[in-house]
């Protein structure tokens, strides 16, 4: 097997028919090309990481997949259906949900109300009693006791869970998590990783997780897509990625102390 074919097989994942197919997606901001033609696929049921140093273009890639930013070129297909040109809320209702890197709760509302808003999305509101559904989601992410709290008093770790709860409430098939561990203490990271694992296993969710430190999700993901300067520089298992010369160069070469392999 040629090397490109091998890489291609890895990119495509094990199962064959991709749930998500990203092809040549590109975005320029003025003089800076934040994403330079990214192509990859995700198979249903995979849990994959996106790794890259600050400014690599990871969040921009998420914004392109979810319709928050329109790509200059390329296509994004969910289950074979083109997403490009759809408003973000429509993409959510197709089954692709995301969290924000900087938590963005609805201020002035309770935790339950925050999740309830997402339970009113057309994709779910006709299938389930909204409030019951919202409480079930809060149970799932471990925020049941906080249902009535105003979001303003929520500790940071719970805000991160609320961010996931809101995305889950839309009943996604593919969940994009933008640095879910960012800013968490070491005691909070493991329970959250377990939550994500549980969602992947029990809810049959396909998950794409952004991290800029590989350590956080070594054990979580089966594949890693490494980015640098807006480009996908490597794809492979976590073990392969830590040894990949371009990944080492991207990290060790520039951001000492924030090393991927650390």
């Amino acid at each position, binding site marked *: 097997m040629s090397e490109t074919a091998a890489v291609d097989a890895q990119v495509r994942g094990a199962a064959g028919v991709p749930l998500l197919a990203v092809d040549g997606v590109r975005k320029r901001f003025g003089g800076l090309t934040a994403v330079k033609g990214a192509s990859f696929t995700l198979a249903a049921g995979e849990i994959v990481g996106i790794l890259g140093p600050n400014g690599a273009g990871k969040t921009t890639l998420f914004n392109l997949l*979810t319709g*928050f930013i329109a790509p200059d070129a390329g296509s994004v297909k969910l289950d074979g259906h083109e997403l490009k040109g759809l*408003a*973000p*809320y*429509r993409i*959510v*209702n197709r089954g692709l*949900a*995301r*969290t*924000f890197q900087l938590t*963005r*709760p*609805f*201020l*002035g*509302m309770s935790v339950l*109300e925050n999740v*309830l*808003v*997402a339970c*009113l*999305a*057309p*994709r*779910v509101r006709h299938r389930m009693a*909204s409030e019951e559904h919202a409480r079930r989601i809060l149970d799932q992410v471990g925020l049941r006791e906080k249902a009535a709290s105003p979001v303003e008093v929520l500790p940071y770790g719970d805000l991160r869970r609320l961010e996931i709860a*809101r*995305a889950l*409430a*839309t009943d996604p098939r593919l969940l994009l998590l933008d640095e879910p561990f960012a800013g968490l203490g070491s005691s909070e990271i493991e329970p959250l990783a377990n939550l994500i694992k549980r969602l992947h296993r029990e809810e049959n969710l396909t998950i794409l997780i952004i991290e800029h430190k590989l350590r956080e999700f070594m054990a979580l993901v089966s594949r890693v897509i490494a980015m640098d300067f807006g480009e996908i520089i490597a794809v492979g298992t976590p073990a392969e990625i830590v040894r990949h010369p371009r990944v080492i160069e991207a990290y060790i070469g520039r951001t000492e102390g924030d090393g991927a392999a650390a």
Partner: protein
Amino acid sequence: MKVRAIDIGGAIGAVALLALAPVLGNSGYLTGVLTLCVIYAIWAASWDFMSGLTGRENFGHALFIGAGAYTAGFLATVYFANPWWSLPLSVVVAMAFAVIVGFPTLRLRGPYFALAMLSAAAIMQRLMLIFWEQTGGEEGLYGLEPLINSPLHYYWFVLAVMVVTAAVLMLLARSHWGLILRAIKGDEATCQAAGINVTFYKIASLMISAAFAGLGGALYAHYQLQVSPPLFSVITSITIIIMVYVGGMGSIWGPVLGAILLTLLTEMLRGFGEYRLWIYTLVLMLILFFLPGGLVAPLWRRLTGARS
């Protein structure tokens, strides 16, 4: 916030007091003033439903008011229609204006919506003067018939419309619909991420807001028995916004009371002649400076020991 027995009691008491005041006062003048108070209350409540809940401030509510009032005026003077046609048709016309202005501007972020509303109302005011042959120019249209001949009975009718308006808007505001509007106020991007069609909810809410404002405009036209261009004026719009601020934005009933109190205050200050505007402005500035959350709704909550 939960509805408590004391809130319902307070509402019934306030409505009863409003209904009986002209009888107890035995004054035709008071009936007239209260009719005006209650019409302003409809306008303030309808402003609050869209702008108070979503945070997208509408600086041209007078557009819908004028549209409703002139609909009543044209029906009376051109088509010689039964005056009761004014009510449903003013609602339809005002909602059409909401779509025309809201559809292109509410999709965008930034000040486009506020500016578009402000200018649309100003343009309509100018158009009423330019097409004076049809609109009667400065003088406007007059010779409208009253809907109900007895001023007291008409007042009670308008009061009933106001109570229904406030009740409908408050029920909507407390429903899932209201939750979505508050979420839009919080963060539109998060709403999108929650799968909510933000543009749809904003436009639909503006249409509901316009419907009640237009209805109030028609009621006003059949109270004054004439309509004229200042109905579209920015002063009308700003007066309503001030009433909402004084009442306490986002509660619907706060702005209702704010509108009634400020309309009464305006009348009471008539005796002060030229000092009236100064006193009025001073009172407003004091309220807005010291009570940025408004006067009426927060005061009631504190007096009755509500938690939030």
